[in-house]
């Protein structure tokens, strides 16, 4: 981007200035005088995080393939740069043109995790765009939210003009085309545009609905204010991923980013039904890409980027029904080109020696598995259909294959959890250590380390556990202390997620429109980058709740009644409430549900269409 010369001293004084100036290979520059719609794609986190996001990569490509639209990128400045921007009134601008965000027609903000909300709004503030949708003037950009958090948009609904619910490839283009059409016809006004946009499937315009509450504080109903506005907004999906556009080129960052590599999206959705997992439900139905399409994309991206690593991603890569075919055809050329394959989401029940050999890369000495819970009882409750034997078999293969560090992910605070289940986490880790010593010395690597990483359960919208209550801090702390006392082996390292962060996340995940003033208060008082230790301040959040008269416990430690109107009832993600309820009841009985590959459980996502062999 063209940097004004007098900003050079600011850029020289901040850390990693290269993340603000763009000019990357493959970044897209168009003539701003001739394009008809200028779209700013904002990622409410740093450049390093945002550049790696697959959704941004895909949508940047899709929008820019349209010659009437110019999509640019915007990232959050790091604290040092943010302070300079505030000090010298430098507005937040897009990387490609250097133009301030306020000059764009459409501004899309990707909401990947709840703690990015303050960053998203602080970015609007840095661009001098009013936070509340109702305060925006006729010529302000239309602010569009999207991404996984948009499945419960309510806590931030009043800040956004509209939301894209579901996959964005088609919807964002339709929104852009509507904008261009109305501008050309001279029919554009903010309100006319939003009303018209609400007719696009997968678009939610919060200002067109009134939320009513009961005297006990629960939601009464959502009422559309016009007859032509849909009662519920159905999520959009791409029916055939093989035919969906996929970038042939990637913007190449100069500075180091978190996943600086080629990422191949192998399928969307998940055949499993872990009962705590939001992604596993909201991305249904599963739709796979064919190995032919994936291989072609990989080859093409290798040639256009020069990356030496290809990562195969999806919610659970080993569930891809044609995985051997895919890895075999990739390996036909990757080895020779010194390109390595990585598979970040392995399940223990399908891990094999053969698979490990294919992805064995000299760079990593470790492997990560996610049993999620310590006892079989607890794993049955959450429907994580893996057994102790699956895990031990997998670590055995890993140790024999020379891996010396095993990382295990767990959750605490799960529904029905007891201290015995917590102890089970320590016991399982110990069994992993024992497994190592059971291997004869010459056949195992030198040294062993097992890390157990425990995060706090957050009851997420559109999961069978969406009605559950969250454990109180004191209970979570008690559980954490208990787990610590159960670990007796020095080779086991224990990391746990801060319960306070999870508490705030739960409010933001399950909140309704009455939470918005709290977020606005935080932003007004300087909050940003809450997903980072540098940004998160629990006491400030608690203070904000108090100042705004919002009781966070209402959304966290209070369970939601099954007949209650939920804030996210306005969204239809495909999976029905009836199905979620039946899964919840099965959870209490400790009964598991087979994967969609075994048989269709009738979750309701089939009504969204989509090419797959499972949904009945």
């Amino acid at each position, binding site marked *: *981007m063209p940097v004004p010369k007098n900003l050079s001293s600011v850029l020289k004084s901040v850390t990693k*200035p*290269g993340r603000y100036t763009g*000019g990357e*290979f493959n970044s897209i520059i168009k003539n701003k005088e001739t394009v008809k719609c200028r779209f700013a794609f904002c990622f409410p986190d740093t450049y390093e995080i945002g550049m790696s996001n697959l959704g941004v990569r895909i949508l940047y490509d899709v929008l820019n393939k349209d010659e009437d639209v110019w999509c640019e990128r915007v990232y959050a400045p790091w604290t040092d740069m943010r302070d300079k921007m505030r000090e010298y009134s430098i507005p937040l601008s897009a990387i490609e043109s250097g133009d301030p965000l306020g000059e764009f027609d459409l501004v899309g903000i990707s909401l990947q995790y709840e703690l990015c909300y303050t960053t998203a709004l602080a970015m609007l503030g840095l661009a001098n765009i009013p936070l509340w949708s109702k305060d925006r003037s006729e010529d302000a950009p239309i602010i569009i939210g999207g991404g996984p958090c948009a499945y419960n948009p309510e806590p931030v609904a009043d800040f956004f003009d509209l939301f894209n619910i579901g996959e964005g490839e088609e919807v964002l283009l339709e929104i852009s085309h509507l904008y261009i059409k109305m501008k050309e016809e001279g029919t554009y006004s903010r309100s006319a545009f939003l009303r018209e946009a609400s007719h696009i499937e997968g678009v939610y315009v919060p200002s067109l609905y009134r939320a009513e509450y009961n005297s006990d504080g629960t939601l009464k109903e959502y009422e559309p204010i016009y007859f032509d506005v849909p009662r519920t907004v159905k999520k959009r999906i791409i029916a055939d991923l093989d035919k969906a556009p996929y970038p042939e080129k990637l913007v190449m960052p100069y500075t*180091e980013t978190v996943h600086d590599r080629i990422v191949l999206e192998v399928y969307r959705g998940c055949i499993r039904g872990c009962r705590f997992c939001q992604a596993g439900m909201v991305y249904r139905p599963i739709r796979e890409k064919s190995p032919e399409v994936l291989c072609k994309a990989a080859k093409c991206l290798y040639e256009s980027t020069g990356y030496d690593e290809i990562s195969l991603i999806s919610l659970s890569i080993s569930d891809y029904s044609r995985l051997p075919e895919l890895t075999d055809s990739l390996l036909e050329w990757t080895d020779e080109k010194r390109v390595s394959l990585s598979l970040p989401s392995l399940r223990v029940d399908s891990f094999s020696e053969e698979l490990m050999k294919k992805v064995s890369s000299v760079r990593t000495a470790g492997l990560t598995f996610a049993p999620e819970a310590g006892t079989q009882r607890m794993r049955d409750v959450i429907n994580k259909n893996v057994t102790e034997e699956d895990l031990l078999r997998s670590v055995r293969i890993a140790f024999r294959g020379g891996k010396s560090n095993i990382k295990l992910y767990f959750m605490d605070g799960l529904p029905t959890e007891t201290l015995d289940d917590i102890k089970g986490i320590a016991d399982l880790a110990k069994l992993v250590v024992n497994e190592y010593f059971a291997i004869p010395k010459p056949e195992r690597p030198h040294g062993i380390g097992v890390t157990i990483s425990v995060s706090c359960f957050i009851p997420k919208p559109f999961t069978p556990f969406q009605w559950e209550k969250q454990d109180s801090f004191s209970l979570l702390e008690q559980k954490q202390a208990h787990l610590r006392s159960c670990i007796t082996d020095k080779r086991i390292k224990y990391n746990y997620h801060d319960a306070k962060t999870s508490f705030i996340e739960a409010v933001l995940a399950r909140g309704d429109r009455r939470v918005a003033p709290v977020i606005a208060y935080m932003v007004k008082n300087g909050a940003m980058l809450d997903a980072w230790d540098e940004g998160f301040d629990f006491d400030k959040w608690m203070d904000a709740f108090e100042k705004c008269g919002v009781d966070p416990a209402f959304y966290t430690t209070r369970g939601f009644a099954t007949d209650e109107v939920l804030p996210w009832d306005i969204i239809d993600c495909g999976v029905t409430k009836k199905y979620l309820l039946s899964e919840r009841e099965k959870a209490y009985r400790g009964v598991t549900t087979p994967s969609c590959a075994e048989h269709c459980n009738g979750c309701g996502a089939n009504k969204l269409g989509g090419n797959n062999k499972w949904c009945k």
Partner: protein
Amino acid sequence: MVQISNNPAYSVLRIKFKKLGDLQYISHLDLVRTMHKIIVRAGLPLWYTEGFNPKPKMVFAAPLSIGAESVCEFMDLRVTERIDPDEAKRRLNENMTSEMQVVDAYYPDVKITELAFLSYEISIKTNGLNEALLEKCRAALDADTIKVVKKTKSGDAEVDIKPLIRSAQIRTSGGEMVIDCTLSADPSSFLNPEYVVKYLKDNVGILSDPIITNEWYSILRTAAFKADMTEFR
């Protein structure tokens, strides 16, 4: 002719390139990572070290600091076959943006370590630019000693950079003050041109708060020389 490589497995190909505009904010470390990908994209026959974790070998002369542009950066590459340098140049340029382009590619006959001096054009836009200010700056650079505080591994140290300045002239151009200087580029006594600006800033009082006063300076590396002041290439 000096023997650049005794190893028959590879030849050393020298790339002279420019790094301008936005790219002045890219650190040297990031440049090295970027170059590797550019070379892979260009499909040059890179030679890799042997062993467990093979790596290509790229050697850069006098890393440029953040905030400086250049039209004469040098990088030595090891290639497994003696490809046509013009073809290499063409393929590399296709894989770079207009702000980073190869100006020359060739099989060198001097080692990259023979680079001894680098010339810079330092342009300073400062308020109140007049003859008196120019004279003050000239006098400052003509002094017998030019003491600046340098960051070293063992803390800050005051050093005299005068012996590292081979020449420095001051002129004006389009309302800006321009310092043409040639500084030591020897790894043991490399002088970053930022110190010249900093010295003037602290001693003559220019560029007090550039953003508010709308002042600035820019640095462009323009030429490279061997110890005898003949062109380095």
